[in-house]
């Protein structure tokens, strides 16, 4: 894939730096309340915490978004939609998992409908622990993610591409069918 459109003008390394700088300052978030953590998203979006300061705005469709927040527990039915949305997003894309539930199931550790660990199915760039994380924690996570992007550490989308077979295999253990 041709990554640098202007190879002769900007060296590849510099181009990557510019690209990272741009994408960290303009993270468009997909508007997807996957779980109860979405309850703390309105305060983060609105006047008190105002995430638009960092250029983060909610977007209606996955085609336009760079950042997906998996806000809380993931039911099996939702996982399919999350994967679908994630695959519709365009690289580079980042995932922040929100709350304790995507880490190990949280309070729903014994539920029959909650997948316990999210990074078995899609790559997660950042976890925020806590039930539910406070807006300050969320803002902190955004800053951390921006730092990671800057340093080239947030590369879950590359992992997904690299280990696509493994991710797909894990997903297909949960889904009985995958409509395309």
């Amino acid at each position: 894939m041709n990554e640098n459109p202007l190879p002769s003008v900007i060296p590849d390394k510099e181009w990557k730096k510019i690209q990272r700088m741009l994408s960290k300052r303009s993270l468009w978030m997909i508007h997807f309340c996957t779980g109860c953590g979405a309850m703390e998203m309105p305060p983060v979006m609105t006047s008190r915490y105002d995430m638009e300061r960092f250029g983060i705005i909610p977007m209606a469709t996955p085609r336009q978004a760079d950042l997906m927040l998996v806000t809380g527990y993931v039911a099996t039915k939702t996982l399919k939609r999350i994967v679908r949305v994630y695959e519709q997003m365009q690289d580079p894309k980042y995932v922040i998992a929100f709350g304790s539930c995507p880490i190990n199931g949280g309070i729903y550790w014994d539920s029959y409908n909650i997948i316990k660990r999210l990074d078995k199915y899609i790559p997660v760039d950042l976890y925020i622990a806590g039930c539910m994380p406070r807006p300050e924690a969320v803002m902190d996570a955004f800053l951390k993610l921006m730092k990671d992007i800057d340093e080239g550490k947030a590369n879950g989308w590359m992992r997904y591409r690299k280990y696509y077979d493994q991710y797909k295999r894990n997903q297909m253990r949960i889904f009985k069918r995958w409509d395309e």
Partner: protein
Amino acid sequence: MIVDWLIQAGLVALYLFLAVVIGLLFMGIARKVTARVQNRVGPPVYQNFLDVGKLLAKKTNIKHNWIFDFAPLFALAGVLLALAYLPMGGYKMLSGEGDLILLLYIMAIPALGFALGAGASANPNAGVGVMRALMLMLSYEMPFLLVLLALMIFYNTASLSTLLEKQMSFAWGIVALPISALAADLALQGMMMEKPFDIPIAPHEIASGPLVEFGGKYLGMLMLYSAGSIVLETTLFVDLFLGGGVVLNPAHYGIIAYVVNYLVWFVFIFIVWMIAVLINAVFPRFRIEQAFKFYWKWPTVIAILGLIQAYIMSVFMGVVP
């Protein structure tokens, strides 16, 4: 001859580039101002440059088929073309080479390209969004065309550059035809798709409508297009009613006049844009048929009154600018 021509082309290119830059800046300012209205800090004013840069630098860009490509190409080329036909800050650009009617139809090129690309995606949201956009166009064009007619009848010209000269020598449109100016500003709100008329892209209803399938560089180019169209629409209003911001006659003052006029023009389009943005911040959106009824009712009546005024002044009173 050829050197003159090249200098002209270079100047036009510079003005077009500046127009897009100003458009992006205006989008940033609008976000900042809206944020202040909403008790927020808001993003930095240069945020939209970063957004466009990011979108153009995205690693993957998807499309559904080749018709999809029409959208960004036609939209960007069309809006730049329309801008080129519009005098900016007293500089005529290409407006001597084509008149208002041509401009009006050039303004349809980006819209059509956009609609083609949106329709190519097979997403029903996009189809509904384009339907709403076209209906909105039919709505606001009614008063706007009447306003244009009033201007063309009153100033007896369809050429924008002549219109600017006549406004400078006689009176600005807003002074001569204040009623039409009011109707035009109402129409402008719909033309810029600001609330209460942001119906085509209503995210809560149709998930950003025609934009629904665009991402990456496609969205980036469409953002450049919308930046250009902000400048296009505000400048159109300024050129029609505020004398294009021409306060000094270039024939007498030379280069200084161009600089001063450019600044005045900038202030004027900023004011027009701010009015739209502030209205945008405090209104919900109409349903499409309500927008249609609204436009074919009040602004149209106002525009007809303006037309009658222009008609009486020009035909019966013999006022010749």
